[in-house]
């Protein structure tokens, strides 16, 4: 499958989820499945972060940068500050190590 076909597949599955929800407005999901949908982003984001950082060649620098970014994000609630702060720490660490 080419890159473009993959992109079409991504579009199809995303659009399907959006349209299905809007079209099934009267269906009542059980509390369990509502909670499941609510926790999907949390588990997926954790799964995207941890192996990427811990499995990298320069993981000590990356872990430290992520720790600083997490602290900034926690305090400022600003995506921009988290990315800029974490990137600054990472970049500085790359200069000295």
């Amino acid at each position: 499958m080419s890159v473009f076909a993959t992109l079409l597949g991504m579009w199809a599955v995303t659009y399907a989820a959006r349209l299905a929800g809007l079209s099934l407005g009267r269906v009542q999901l059980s509390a369990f499945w509502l909670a499941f949908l609510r926790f999907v982003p949390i588990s997926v984001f954790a799964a995207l972060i941890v192996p990427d950082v811990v499995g990298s060649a320069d993981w000590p620098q990356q872990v430290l940068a992520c720790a600083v970014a997490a602290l900034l994000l926690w305090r400022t609630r600003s995506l921009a500050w988290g990315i800029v702060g974490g990137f600054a720490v990472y970049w500085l660490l790359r200069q000295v190590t």
Partner: protein
Amino acid sequence: MTVAAPFRVSFLSGFRAIVPLWLGVAPFAVAYAVTAKASGLSLFETQWMSLTVFAGASQFAAAGLFGQGAAPISIVVTTAVLNVRHLLYGLSLAQKVPMTLGQRLLAAQFLTDEAYGMAVSAPGLNLAFLLGAELSLYTVWNVFTLLGSLLGALVPDPEKLGVGIVFPLAFLGLLIPQLVGRVPMIVAALSGLLAWGLSRVLPGGVVVLATGVLGALAGAWLSTRRNRA
């Protein structure tokens, strides 16, 4: 009896409701474009993804997976897993806004976390407001994807600059605000550990899928069990 606001007025107030979020979305779109470039996607592919898929986190994930040379099917499945939450937004919105089939087909294309969040809490919510909020985000996301691609063309060697770190940083930015209360923190910690363990034996796309489902099941079980107790 209240007179319904004209379409244009509601659309514009929806559009304006999202404007404060532009500050957060614009750098994210630039970061997406730069990392997509680093992963070997062309300017057209990068923009096409923003125009069609239009879902920030999954676009980041896909760019990362393309960079790792992941199988196409695992990229599509990861996208589906990441975006299945839109089902919840649609279910919730459809109960508040009556829509014809044509209107649903249109509104579905531009639905996002942010538009849903703004729309669902708006006092004057109607279809025009929803579309205004949706297209506000669509505009800024696509304009800054393009700017990021063009700026990215000036970046000589993404590997040397270490831009890969922007993936975990951006996901942290999406994850941290959701960690309110004990169960979300437990789910995040469990999922992180599980993903770490699985990543030693399985390819990246499968790790995200398996962890995504198992972590969310654990969260659903923990939270509904607690409610019953």
